């Protein structure tokens, strides 16, 4: 791979300004709520105030009497059409609208279709629903008790237990524990959180009765998968369904699932023949859309007295809410949680997870990390610090001692993953130098002597992204490959269409850079399109940091297919043998004769005007890329916190993030991804958490209670990088979108515990609310 691209090309490694920005900067983005179609109707949703109740009566007569109200759709209406339930991506099923029973607060109960948004809102207040409340199941541990009320009586198994899943070698792990000098044990809770993208979810469903075609503009991160699911659910032939994911105002995983509102809007459009728009308000978004995390973890780490880590044993209870509607690969109900051995060489590990139903909305989707890697990283990084504290060793030393050495890659982990590449000591050393780790430890000692509370926390995480190899990964049976189709036009400009989709990641720019690099055509002449299932090749969508590892690879491979053909045309133009040509400086040249060369622009023209007789006209290629393995980005983060003894407030003073995501397409965009990822790593550590009262009321139903960080709470992140290319990826990239969200929380947690460690504190669960910290200070007599 060439990294010598000139700025006129704008290939790999260049800080190319984003091609999507001109429209956003002018207010000309095209988000779902910006779409207006002739005759469009509006939908609003009646929701349940109860977390668990039987519906005894729905009376829509007052709502229907309001001028402009066309219909009120209930579960019974959908049931008649066989649409009251839909499949989830996890082989469970989920209510679209309930026929007789609600299972979480704010669940969709009925939908009003009206000529105007304001009329629909008036009408939902007039739909009278009578409920008979049932005892809600809120605590997942109680849900597992034999006499717990059933969340899902519709299932054959009359229990709230969904599934049990294990990875690793239990016997070998037990054996390693027996032989260890020391075992540290810790319970951790990773709270429920919500992605809360600034744009909520919504759609415009438009059924053309003449063509028999359903077009849905939709806030989705996976338009093709949605098309297939819609076709399977509704029976509409797949070629008569078009899903368009226009500009998306942030996804972070919350826009992967199929929410009932989308389906009801489609049904309403099918029934009325009008386009129907549905846009969530913020409270609906926060209360009813799928959630992330909610893992109750019990971990044990075995080691020798010199700090050598030997084995890890983890048990977890996963609260999945009322429907198992996460978006994990089929064989991985607990996602990639088994990457929990992290950056460390362990002899053995065993992980067990049990999924459980509760009267809450579906859990287990992403919060900028789809596949439970954040939970895994938080656990192992906390356990390493717990061990260091127990052995009175510096946590940096324990890490250095246990890192998988750079020469051991590719490395097979104790739970079976094959790590592609890594250089963990280099990243940690770089972070320690950048932040002056030794100086900070000295300062900390001085501050402690004065009674001040300062902590330093390290996280040296390993991510696992780029799902994934088709032999292992599928969603509902659809293999997790991804795709790109490239057409080079006669004048040398290009359109590339990809199977993934952007919610702010800048694909229109970075994928153009990949094409530019591979073809030697300037980035400004390359258009990248995505998100329209009628034009884009089939793909699984953007989540789990998979765009660059999968579709990015497909783009490079498709471009190389074009280059292969271009070589033949170049040979024809240069009157040389194709084997005598070499690709140098973005041109084909006759080996050893730099003067005899031809660039892609001329080749493209020739592909339509002057091509050899044994070559087809045109210059196009498609690639469906099936990655041979996952990629394993990693990083070393160091966080410094100060704790206010008068208020319990934790303040992040500095945060250095050294990331390694392999080769970088656009450093400007990678920096931006890391800044954002760090902020979404900090938020659950300090501010965001979702809780329920004993009746199942979600207590953070607005941005006044669900606390997104502002610029004031967010520190000035300091970033740096090392580069360890992926050996199996076509251009050595690994993916970066979620690394920082995965890696940041334990750095903050370790810093907070470090600040309190001299008091004997060994663990504190996130989020670090001031009252939680203050109670600890009081307990240890150091509160001001």
């Amino acid at each position, binding site marked *: 791979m060439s990294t010598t691209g000139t700025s006129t090309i704008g290939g790999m490694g260049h800080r190319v300004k984003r091609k999507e920005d001109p429209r956003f900067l002018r207010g000309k983005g095209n988000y779902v709520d910006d779409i207006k179609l002739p005759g469009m109707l509006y939908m609003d949703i009646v929701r349940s105030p109860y977390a668990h109740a039987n519906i005894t009566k729905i009376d829509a007569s007052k709502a229907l009497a309001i001028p402009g109200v066309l219909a009120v759709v209930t579960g019974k209406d959908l049931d008649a059409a066989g649409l009251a339930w839909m499949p989830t991506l996890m082989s469970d099923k989920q209510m679209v609208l309930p026929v007789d029973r609600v299972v979480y607060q704010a669940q969709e109960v009925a939908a009003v279709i009206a000529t105007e948004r304001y009329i629909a809102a008036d009408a939902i207040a007039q739909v009278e629903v009578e409920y008979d409340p049932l005892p809600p199941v809120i605590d997942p541990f109680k849900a597992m008790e034999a006499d717990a009320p059933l969340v899902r009586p519709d299932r054959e198994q009359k229990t709230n237990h969904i599934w049990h899943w294990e990875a690793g070698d239990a016997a070998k792990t037990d054996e390693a524990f027996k032989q260890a000098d020391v075992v540290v044990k810790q319970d951790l809770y990773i709270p429920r959180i919500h992605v809360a993208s600034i744009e909520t979810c919504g759609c415009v469903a438009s059924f053309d009765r003449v063509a028999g075609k359903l077009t849905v503009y939709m806030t989705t991160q996976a338009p093709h998968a949605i098309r297939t699911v819609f076709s399977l659910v509704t029976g509409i032939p797949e070629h008569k369904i078009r899903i368009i994911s226009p500009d998306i105002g942030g996804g972070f995983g919350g826009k992967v699932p199929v929410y009932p509102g989308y389906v009801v809007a489609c049904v309403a459009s099918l029934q009325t023949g009008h386009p129907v728009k549905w846009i969530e308000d913020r*409270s609906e978004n926060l209360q009813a859309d799928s959630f992330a995390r909610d893992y109750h973890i019990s971990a044990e780490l075995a080691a020798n007295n010199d700090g050598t880590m030997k084995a890890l044993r983890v048990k977890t209870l996963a609260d999945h809410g009322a429907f198992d509607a996460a978006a994990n690969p089929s064989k991985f109900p607990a996602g990639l949680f088994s990457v929990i051995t992290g950056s460390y060489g362990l002899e053995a590990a065993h992980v067990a997870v049990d999924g459980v139903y509760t009267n809450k909305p579906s859990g287990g989707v992403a919060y900028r990390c789809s596949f439970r890697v954040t939970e895994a990283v938080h656990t192992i990084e906390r356990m390493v610090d717990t061990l260091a504290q127990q052995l009175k060793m510096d946590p940096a030393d324990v890490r250095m001692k246990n890192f998988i050495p750079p020469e051991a890659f590719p490395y097979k982990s104790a739970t079976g993953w094959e790590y592609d590449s890594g250089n963990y000591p280099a990243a940690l050393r770089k972070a320690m130098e950048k932040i002056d780790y030794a100086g900070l430890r000295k300062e900390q000692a001085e501050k402690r002597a004065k009674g001040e509370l300062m902590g330093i926390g390290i996280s040296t995480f390993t991510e696992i992204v780029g799902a994934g190899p088709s032999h292992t990964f599928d969603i509902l049976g659809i293999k997790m490959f991804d795709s790109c189709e490239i057409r080079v036009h006669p004048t040398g400009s290009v359109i590339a269409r990809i199977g993934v989709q952007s919610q702010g990641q800048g694909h229109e720019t970075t994928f153009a850079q990949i094409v530019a690099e591979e073809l030697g055509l300037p980035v400004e002449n390359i258009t990248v399109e995505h998100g329209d299932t009628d034009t884009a090749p089939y793909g699984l969508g953007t989540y789990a940091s998979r765009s660059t590892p999968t579709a990015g690879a497909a783009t490079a491979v498709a471009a190389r297919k074009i280059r292969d053909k271009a070589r033949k045309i170049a040979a024809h133009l240069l009157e040389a043998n194709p084997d005598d040509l070499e690709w140098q400086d973005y041109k084909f040249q006759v080996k050893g004769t730099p003067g005899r060369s031809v660039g892609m622009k001329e080749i493209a023209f020739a592909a339509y005007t002057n091509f050899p007789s044994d070559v087809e006209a045109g210059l196009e290629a498609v690639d469906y890329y099936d990655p041979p393995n996952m990629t394993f980005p990693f990083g070393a983060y160091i966080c410094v916190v100060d704790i206010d003894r008068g208020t319990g407030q934790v303040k992040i003073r500095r945060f250095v993030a050294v990331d390694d995501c392999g080769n970088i397409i656009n450093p400007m965009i990678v920096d931006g991804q890391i800044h954002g990822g760090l902020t979404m790593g900090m938020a659950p550590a300090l501010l965001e958490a979702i809780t329920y009262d004993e009746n199942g009321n979600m207590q953070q139903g607005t941005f006044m209670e669900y606390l997104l960080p502002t610029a004031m709470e967010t520190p000035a992140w300091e970033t740096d990088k090392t580069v360890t290319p992926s050996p199996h990826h076509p251009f050595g990239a690994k993916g970066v979108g979620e690394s920082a969200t995965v890696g940041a929380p334990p750095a903050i947690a370790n810093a907070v515990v470090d600040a309190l460690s001299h008091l004997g504190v060994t663990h504190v669960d996130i989020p670090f609310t001031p009252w939680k910290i203050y109670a600890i200070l009081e307990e240890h007599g150091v509160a001001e």
Partner: protein
Amino acid sequence: MHFTGTQQIKAPVAKVWAFVLDPNKVAECAPGFKTMEILGPDHFKPTLAVGIGAVKATFTLDVQLEDVREPDHAAMRGRGAAAGSAVDMVAAMDLKALAEDVTQMDWTADVNVSGTLASVGARLMEGTAQRLTAKFFDCFRQKIEAPDDATAPSTASVPSSPASESTGAQ
């Protein structure tokens, strides 16, 4: 939310009992009482505009008297809906003669609020519910002790004058 309270009412038990069993009189004590539909001797549907200051939600309640044991115990169960919210309550009271003309009323109330009010208004919920419940029972005392011919407006049944200005920082 669980609340309890005690009232000493300057009236004989029989008079208190008669008041408490009269749905029209009790309803007037309900916060923000607007209208009532009487479906039976122990089944009522009052409509209440419950609120404090600028916040107001109109509930239609379905109230059922239960466990009526003349002359000293009665309970009621109510359920209602408003503005994406639901309220469920169970209240009970016991009467005891302290003297010929003095009755003690011990009351308990369990109030559960669900939905928008609970999710959005949680910050002010408990204090408000407690205040409104206490006012409800205090109103009994005031009404019972009032001269029989009194037709004075039921000032106690309405929260004292709400904040008239209703704007400002969030």
